[in-house]
Structure formats: structure tokens, C-alpha cells
């Protein structure tokens, strides 16, 4: 599939994961998703932490028995050889409070670097997952660093050319990191963000009332990102933080619940249709 065109903190928020993994229907997909995490900005000074980066997301429901082996095969395919590197599955309890989601699995480490998140979803939108989807989230820059053996993601070779035509990750993204870090931490207009948050929240609720789940979910995503920006600006106190998270969760959960409801209704009507055809 293609990336979703709204700012989000992780590929998990793509409707192909959050919404499509709800319910009992089998589902398998993979896509690249650009991610934004305003608080992770380091003005381009950190070798592997940035406020904007790319994930490759794989979702398989129900989880196959050999998924760990499949994942390791994919490492070999992109040039991470488990015979030379130290690959480890380290405990990870994932919680996505704004999605009412949780899962168990691992951080997959390559030589001490977390390069992939491996999660068996247990709950999504507040409901238990049955069957269980498994999510593999590859940190693309970090995987590339291992493959190319570079110190910093900014040193990643982008096009394989030499001389004048050589382009690195730095050439493409460093200015982006510097300026967006400044925006996220220092210059984003707090009043405007707060207003937009409220507007997105209101629009999401009203769309849900009208049964427009997918557009409502877009608004929930926007609210989530606006909250992340406010958080990066350091204007949210501990108490307010919990309340903001609760508000975003309510929106996301509302979308999940209604999406699931719609799925069930369609399933019922198709069952009754086929039943009447049979009769």
C-alpha cells in the first residue's frame, strides 16, 4: 500500500493498521510511512534521533507461526547478516495510550541498536484482538545505517553516485531537521495549535455522529499530531498531559468502535443476502 498523507507518529496510525486490523477478517499489508515525532528533534545534531523519519510497516492477521523466521529472512534480503551481527529479541510491552492499544513482543536489536519493533497486538481501540495481528515496524534509517555501516543516519548514501552527484541523507534532510526542531521546540504558535486541536476534536466528533468514520479518523490523527507539537513546545503540564491523551484516545476509540460496528453490520447483511440467495 501507499503511505497515508497525514502527519502521524508511527506507521501504526495508518488506517491500514489501526482500522483494518479490527475485527476477525484476515488482513495482510505492507507500506512505507513517513513519521513525525516533534519531541525527538535534535536540531540535526544526534546521529540517530530525528523528528521526521521513515518506517516500513508490515501487518499480518492472524500472526503466522514462522513470523520471526520470516522477519530474519527479510534482514538477510536487505543485507543484514545474522551470522556477523548480534541480533536480539528484547522484551517490549507496547502501549499506545492514544489508540487504546497494547501489545507484547520485542524490540529487535542489531548490535545493540533497535532497528525493528515486533508486536503482537492484544488490544486495539479498547477491544481484545482475536485473531491476533502481528506488526513489524522497520526503522528504515536505522536498518540502512547497519547495511551501509555508517556512523550517523545523516551520512547515509542516498543515490550511490560519486563526486558532484553524490547525495547523502544530510543533503536532503538536515536543513529539515534543523528548522523543524526550531519550529517544534521554539516557534510553533501555541495559541493556534490549541485552537486547531479543539477544532479537530469537534470536527471528529461531529463526523462520527454522521457516520463518516474515515474522515473522522483523519481528524483524530490531526488532533494527535497537534498534541505532540504542544508537548514539544513544553506548554503542557503533567495533569493537562493526561487529559489531552484521554481526549485523543476518546476520538481514536470512537473511530475504532464505529468502524468495527460498520464491519459487523456489513457482514450481517452479506450473510443474510447469501442466505436468501440459498433459499
Amino acid at each position, binding site marked *: 500500500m501507499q503511505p497515508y498523507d497525514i502527519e502521524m507518529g508511527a506507521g501504526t496510525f495508518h488506517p491500514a493498521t489501526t482500522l483494518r486490523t479490527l475485527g476477525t477478517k484476515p488482513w495482510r499489508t505492507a507500506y512505507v510511512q513517513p513519521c513525525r515525532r516533534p519531541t525527538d528533534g535534535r536540531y540535526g545534531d544526534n546521529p540517530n534521533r530525528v523528528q521526521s523519519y521513515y518506517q516500513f510497516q508490515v501487518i499480518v492477521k492472524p500472526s503466522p507461526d514462522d513470523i520471526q523466521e520470516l522477519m530474519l529472512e527479510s534482514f538477510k534480503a536487505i543485507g543484514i547478516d545474522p*551470522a556477523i551481527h548480534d541480533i536480539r*529479541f528484547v522484551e517490549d510491552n507496547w502501549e499506545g495510550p492514544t489508540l487504546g492499544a497494547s501489545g507484547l513482543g520485542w524490540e529487535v536489536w542489531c548490535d545493540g541498536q533497535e532497528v525493528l519493533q515486533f508486536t503482537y497486538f492484544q488490544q486495539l481501540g479498547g477491544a481484545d484482538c482475536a485473531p491476533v495481528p502481528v506488526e513489524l515496524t522497520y526503522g528504515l534509517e536505522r536498518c540502512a545505517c547497519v547495511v551501509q555501516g555508517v556512523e550517523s543516519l545523516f551520512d547515509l548514501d542516498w543515490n550511490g553516485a560519486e563526486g558532484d552527484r553524490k547525495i547523502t541523507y544530510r543533503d536532503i534532510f538536515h536543513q529539515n531537521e534543523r528548522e523543524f526542531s526550531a519550529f517544534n521546540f521554539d516557534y510553533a504558535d501555541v495559541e493556534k495549535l490549541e485552537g486547531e486541536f479543539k477544532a479537530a476534536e469537534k470536527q471528529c466528533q461531529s463526523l462520527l455522529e454522521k457516520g463518516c468514520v474515515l474522515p473522522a479518523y483523519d481528524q483524530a490523527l490531526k488532533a494527535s499530531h497537534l498534541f505532540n507539537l504542544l508537548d514539544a513546545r513544553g506548554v503542557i503540564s503533567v495533569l493537562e498531559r493526561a487529559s489531552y491523551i484521554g481526549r485523543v484516545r476518546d476520538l481514536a476509540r470512537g473511530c475504532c468502535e464505529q468502524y468495527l460496528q460498520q464491519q459487523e453490520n456489513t457482514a450481517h447483511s452479506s450473510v443474510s443476502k447469501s442466505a436468501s440467495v440459498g433459499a
Partner: protein
Amino acid sequence: MSDFFFEIRSGEIPAQMQKPATLDLKRLLEQKFKDLQLSHGDISCYAGPRRLVAVVRELATEQTVRHEERRGPRTDATKQAIEGFLKSTGCNLDDLEIRETPKGTFYFLTETFPAVATKTILPDVIREVIETLHWPKKMTWSTTTKTWVRPIQGGCALFGEEPLEFTVSMNEDGNPDPILVQFNNITVGHRFMAPSPFAVKSFEDYVQKLHKAFVIVDQEERQKVLKEQLNDLCAQHNLTILDDKGLLDEVTGLVEWPVCLLGDIDASFMSLPPELLRTTMRVHQRYFSVHKKGGAFAPHFIVAANIVAPDDGKTIVIGNERVLKARLSDAAFFYEQDRKKPLAEHGKKLDKTVFHASLGTLAQKQNRLVEIIDLIEKEDEAARQDAKEAARLCKADLMSEMVFEFPELQGIIGFYYAKADGLKETIAQAIYDQYSPKGPSDALPSQKVSRLLALADRLDTLVGFFSVGLKPTGSKDPFALRRAALGTIRFLEEGYDWALDDVLSCVFDLYDGTKKTVQALPKAEVLKELELFFMERLKVYRRDQGYAHDYIEAVLSRGLSEPLSVMKTRLDALVSFVETHEEEAVNLFAGYKRATNILRKEKVTDLKEPLETLFEKEEEKALYKTLFATRKEIQGFLSQGDFTKAMAILAPLRSPIDAFFEHVQVNDERQDIRQNRLNLLGYIQKSLEQVADFSKIEG
């Protein structure tokens, strides 16, 4: 008899859950074989990242014929009840036996279970293990409804040399398409170095073959190998490893085949606080920190890899060094962000940060600490001023990015920032030490200013939580109040001569206007609860120090009105008295108890001074005279705090007391003589109680 062995393979088990799982598995198997009436030898359980293993030695091969007796309904029960019983057991009335019991006449049924070959039961044992073993967090996967810590991939089971082949369903009975786990005699080795399956013939064969396949099954052996490698690597590079049992245990659970490698910390980060380096490496990367031979933090780390790489681990080391660089660069980023303003400036946010929802803000806590320090240090003006200065800043680092990122660095970060702000070394050190001692074996902070702040903080915390009813219950102690009390006790007995009760009362008053009144309890009740709590902690602490419980009780009677340091001296004097005057002590205590018992039996309440004129026998006169003389002397020594001497005077009292009980009849017919003798008993009691409550001493 044969050995029964099985392995349950799964996705990587979280390191910290492995050890508890082995203990629970052992307990479960012991119980199960007891219920099945199957005799067995030792049970050993092992855990590693990908497998949980048990071996039951010398398990009986057959469950012999068993008889179980069941009591049925009464003979005069309704027809339905009797028929119901017959139906549920599948018997006829003829099979039942009628027997009289003290509770009435009942039908009895003796059920006979035929001999069963153990091997036919074992699959069910494993099924039960999978269903009931405790994991702190369990999960479903694919379409399973039953759970395990991570998805189960397969199993291996043998009884003697015979493979046990069966499947375990991870769904409820009746599911048409269940997820099945296959058990047989096949296992697999190391995930990367020996992934091909192979068959095993016995537990010994399994352990040996896995060793050849780069898996050390026994976690203790794995840890031993890990330790040896750590030590060897350190020896080669002239380093010493920093002891860290917790990390060692965790890493043991992260690798099947440990391979320790030495990496370098980039020189540009060596100016960061060593505690920060160590915490970053430990918490985020599970690296071991090392010191140079002289003691300084060395610019290296040790990582335990899980693989023997063809390039001797060069790629792995480079990768790990790179990650650490990024981690430390992040730490340095927070450090620089924080250092843009002084510590005091960070502290300004404390008045918007709650200490606890019912107990006001951290800023208010700091203010109270300043006042508590005034209460507990009256003499040393310099120390008091420094401690108060430290108290005004002590929680400020909680507002820093650094402590938000690494909560375990609270205090430590405050110390570095305070020093960077140019504050006095003693003040910075007190901020560093405020949370010490953390455990019972930690040393107390060495400087006085630190102790004042650390003690004040504990007193404030204890009084606060108790005053809103949040005291520890059972195994629950979310605010670590037991630890706070233990720390308080240790501080107090090492050099403070004031009684705790007054101070607790003053601290309670300091909370006025801060507490949420809804939860607040009345002062008298809070102080009583605190006294009971301290007494309980004190007993536990003394027992841990090796004192006998009855001696501990004997010096507790004055409660918190006696300074703890004095109470300790009294206890030591009591112990040494019994050691040096063993025979006298035993008799003396017996005499004291005899006197106390008589007084209790006679329900005597208003004791007076005995009158010499009413004494008739020599023995009572002599006793009174000796007591009268020694009592004064004891008081003299007590007022000087010399309990050893006070007790030494007690020793000679033994013979006049013995003589009195031997020759004098207390219950005289004449009321005034009798009363006077009772008064004399009271006199014995009081004289001795000045030193300790001997009635508590056993034996």
C-alpha cells in the same frame, strides 16, 4: 523409575521472567506428582531466552492401583439425592457401603482406580503446565485462546529414552481448527549458529547436544561462563568490573551462548558524570561498566553478544559503539539543555508539581524540610545552615530533562548541577546523598549535612503519608515507607539523642494547611499509628541484627519517648549482662517474674513503699535493705546513661530475692503484713524495671 524431561520452546522470553518461571514450574510439578501419587526424585528446572525446561528424576513408571473413598448422602436422604449420587458415580446401590459416623449414617463408596502407565498421563501434565504456569504478562497469538508468555513454537518430551509424541491445543475443546503445539523428541539449537532440528535420547543427551549447538541450558552455568568471560576480559585490559548482580542476571536471560566483547566509549563523552554514563549503558544497552585499576571510570564497556561471529565480533563492537555514541549524544543534549539555567531556576517549577495528590507540592515539601532541619539539629549551626540550603534545592533536579529521562539519577544530577552553579561542595553532596541509604546494606552518608537532609526527608514523607491514611499494608508499600522508617532508625541510633515522638508531632503540625482535609486523620491517631509502625520496624531491624526477640521486647516499653540511641545502649547492656552473669541473670529474671505473677494473681493495684516496721523475717528486711541501697545506685548510673554498670549492680540481688521466696510466706493471715509483703514485691519489680522489662525475657 525413569527420568522425565520436557522442553517448551517459544519466542524469546523476557529475561526477568525466566527465573521466577523456573521456580513456579518446579512448585507446579511437585504438586502435580503429589496429587497423582507418583514418587520421584529431584526436580530441576531451567530457563533461557527460547526454552523452559524441566527434568524430573526417577519418576515412578506406573501409578499403582489407588482406592479413594467418597462419602455419599445420608441413608435417610431423599430418593433423588441418592439416585443423583449413583448417577454421578455410575454405581449401583449394591456397590455402596452403609456406615455409621458421629454425624449420622451415610452411604460410602470406595472407588478403585486401576494401575496406569505414567507415560500415558504425562502429556496431560504438560498441558496443565501450559495452562497454569504463572507469567506476569501472557499473550494470545494467531487464533489461540490459551496463552503463554510468547508464542509457543514446539516442545520436546521424553520419559526414560522413550519419546512422548502428542499435541497440545492452544484453543478450547471443540474448536474445529485449533492451533496445535507438537511435542516429540526433536529440539533445535542456537537461533543463528545451529538452527537445524535434531533428536535427543535423554536429558543428558539433550544438554550435551545443545551445548554443541551453542546453547547452555542451565542458567547458572550460563551465568558462570558469563562471569568468567567478564573477568578474563577485564584481566586482559587491566580493568575491574563494576559489581552488578541485577544486570548479570538480566544478561544471563538474554543470551543462549554468551560472548563478551570490549568496546570503547567515545572520548568526547568522558566529561559527562560517570553515574550518567553507567546508567545510560546499563538501562538502555545492558552494558557492563568497568573501572581502571586505580578506581576511575574507564572509557570502555563490555557487551555480552549472543553469537560467535567470524570476524571475532568486530562488526558487533563497531555497531554497539555507534549506538552508544547516539545514546550519549542524547544524554549530552539533555545535559546541555538543562544547564542553560541554574538549578534554582529548575526548582521554580516545583510549586506546580505535586509531591502526592493529598500532600501538596514538592515546593511545600522543600519548605517543610528546611523547618524539620531546624527541629532536629540544635547545636551545630554550620551544618544546620548548609543542610537548610541544600533542602531549598534538593528536589529541583526532578524538574530537569535529565531526571525525567533517567529517574534513577535523582539527587545525582542535582549534585552535578549544584556544583556547576558554584554551590558549596557539602551542599551539593547533601543533594547527592538525600536518598541514601536505599537498602538495608547501603552505608549511611558520611557527612553530617547529608544525614540531616536525608533524615528530614524521611520524617516528612512518613508523617505525610500516615496522616492521610496511606500506610503500608501486607506486602504493599507503594511509597517505600518501610524503607524510609528503616533509614530513619539507622540515622537516629547513630548519633541523635532526641526522642522521636516530639519531632513526629512537630512535623505533623508543619503539614497544617497543606493536606487535603478530606483524607486527613486526627493527630493523636496518626502519632499512635506511627509509633506502632516504628516499633514493628525496630523489632524487624533488631532481629536482622541478630538480637533475640525477647531481649528486643524487654527494652521497647518506653516507646518513642526514649531516644533510639539510648534504647540501643540499654539493649546491648542487657545482652552483655546475661552473657557475663549467666547464672545470676536466670535466677534474677525468675525472681522478677515470680514477683510479677503474684502481683498479677492478687490483682494488686495500689502499691505503696513497704514499711520497715512491718517486716518480721530477716530475709525480708535484708532484701529491702539491699534493694533500697541499689535502687539509688542504679538511678545514679542510669542518669549517666551507663546501663552496663546499672545492670552489674543487679547481679548480687539474686541471693536476697531467692532467700526471700524461700523463707517468707507472702500470704500471711494478717492483712497488714500481707499487704506490706506485696508492697515489697512491687518494690522488686520497680527496681528492676528501671533497667528493662524482664517479664518479656523467656527461658
